[in-house]
């Protein structure tokens, strides 16, 4: 009787042992920093000294400042615009790759092509927009040379327009990959069955392809929204310092060593992004579809 008992007790501890490395990594690199941020957000600030106590002034100041709402509105606006554009691009590119590119070789080749923007550093990618979109950039010069504009278009660079362009450039792949992945799993026979039943190409997309790629759409949306909401660098460079985001404000606070207000701001941002993700998860049961 002893042997099976020993075996069964070893069996029950096995899952915990297996999950331990990941749990450890999460606790050390995610759990502890998060708790620290939350704790610090309640600390008080005196000149440049951080006083470990429990006050709500960081939050009350944050929530009473009109600047906070402007920044959040601006950041959410960026997130929604970029989300809409990358969704259209991600869906279209995936649809083309999955349903129109017949050979696997071409499919993989074109897929790799989508990752080209990631072959260089973030900074270089953004700086490379400047000679293209700048006042005397390629685009403006071409437009003037073609007679389509009589003076350089100002909105091309250091504007909301250029910020959105940079975001779309950076984050489209995060939409393409998950949508491609879920679209590729749609059985061809299911599409044929819909065509057999009289579905037009458009109805196949609306009634079959979109519902069956919703996991990928949800995952891509989470990626893009979280990335845009958490960015300060792109906004800073591409708006030429004329626009800001929540995280840019945070980075300013950190730069002048105002850690508690920055922490409070971070907790607020985290809450809002978590809520947005929760809404997406509510619409699409990502967990169920990933396991199925």
């Amino acid at each position: 009787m002893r042997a099976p008992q020993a075996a069964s007790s070893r069996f029950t501890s096995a899952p915990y042992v297996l999950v331990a490395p990941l749990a450890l990594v999460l606790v050390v690199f995610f759990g502890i920093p998060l708790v620290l941020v939350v704790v610090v957000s309640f600390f008080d600030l005196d000149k440049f000294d951080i006083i470990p106590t429990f006050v709500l002034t960081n939050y009350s100041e944050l929530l009473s400042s009109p600047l906070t709402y402007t920044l959040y509105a601006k950041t959410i606006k960026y997130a929604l615009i970029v989300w809409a554009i990358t969704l259209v691009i991600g869906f279209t590119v995936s649809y083309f790759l999955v349903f129109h590119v017949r050979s696997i070789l071409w499919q993989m080749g074109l897929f790799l092509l989508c990752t080209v923007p990631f072959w260089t550093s973030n900074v270089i990618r953004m700086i490379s927009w400047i000679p293209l979109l700048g006042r005397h950039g390629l685009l403006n010069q071409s437009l003037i040379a073609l007679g389509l504009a009589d003076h350089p278009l100002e909105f091309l660079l250091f504007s909301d327009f250029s910020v959105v362009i940079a975001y779309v450039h950076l984050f489209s792949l995060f939409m393409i990959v998950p949508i491609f992945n879920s679209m590729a799993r749609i059985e061809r026979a299911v599409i044929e069955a819909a065509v057999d039943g009289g579905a037009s190409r458009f109805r196949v997309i609306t009634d079959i392809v979109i519902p069956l790629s919703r996991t990928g759409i949800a995952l891509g949306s989470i990626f893009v929204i979280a990335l845009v909401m958490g960015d300060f660098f792109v906004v800073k460079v591409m708006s030429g310092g004329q626009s800001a985001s929540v995280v840019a404000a945070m980075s300013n606070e950190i730069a002048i060593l105002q850690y508690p207000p920055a922490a409070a701001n971070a907790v607020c941002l985290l809450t809002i992004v978590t809520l947005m993700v929760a809404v997406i998860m509510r619409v699409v049961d990502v967990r169920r579809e990933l396991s199925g």
Partner: protein
Amino acid sequence: MAQAGEIELRHITKRFDQTLAVDDISLTIPHGSYCCLLGPSGCGKTTILRMIAGHEAPTSGDIRLGGESVVGLPPARRGTAMMFQNYALFPHLNVLDNVAFNLKMRGVRRAERHERAREMLAQVQLDRRFSERMPAQLSGGQQQRVALSRALITKPRVLLLDEPLSALDEFLRLQMRGELRRMQRELGITFVHVTHTQLEAIAVADLVVVMDQGRIEQAASAHEIYTLPASAYVARFMGGQNVLTGTVVTIDGGVATLVDGSGARFATPVKSPAPAVGQEIACCVRRDRVDIEKLRGPSPSPGEATNVAAGTVHAIEYQGSYVKVTIDVLESEQVVAHLADHAFLATPLDIGDAVLARWATEDVYLLTGDLTHPPTGVRPGPLQGRESRSRNL
């Protein structure tokens, strides 16, 4: 004027790149009949089905439904409906919406299409309580009923079934094939059913089309295919026959005698035009018309008697109502006999026994057609079937 559900294939050829999938086929399937396309994997049967459905276009030739050419028409405008292998149910829709899908595409209002879907599900005897379930929550048999309802809801004139029973277990397979036949009778429409299982085809079909390598070997009733095969290929593929080959030595009174490589003599009735002396011919004798007796004494020399094969028992398989005995014959094809169980039990045999198999001349049937034709893939396994499907996609 052809009736609505008549299917006519005129010199259909289909190439995929360099491979010839269907090679100049002509066939007429009468309105309201149950037709089975039967053949090993890769013989082109699924391609034919998909061309009738409109999911594949023929390289050349014409397809006529009810007397009108449908080449180039989209599937939904042909009046056909297809039931896919593994059913291809919409995984994100519940049973009712799956069945109602084709009506939704035709702009039928929600309440009405659900009502008709419920009627359809009742007709295929799927319980009402399943109508809210998702396809993944159904058993294979239930999925099949849903797929059948979905295909039939638009009242097609032709139902095309691609290996409809291959995903089911043996018991359900027998039950569902009976039900398919019953549905076909009830609806009075044309069914075209693709299968690689001989017994399935002869059990349900009015018209069995035996195919090999993109060509039709024989298209006839099940009984005719089974008892009067057109070629050695069909006889071997259907499996109920022993094929005998040899050279004609004499023709006398409508009976030809032939001698095979080992010197054994066989006799077969011939009709005019009779084969010439010296010609290679093939004939067949049904397995259940072969008698087996234990050899007592020395083995007779080949050619001593006619329609006798001497050999040793290779395998004995009990089949319930009969016993299948396979005999190794020296320098010749194996002979298989189906013995009635009581006859077998009266004189039991054992593996390795020396036996004589004999049959009557009138039970021998002369085969025409190509003798050199190799019997490819006589018993394709389920894996081979899958292979052909993925290639056809």
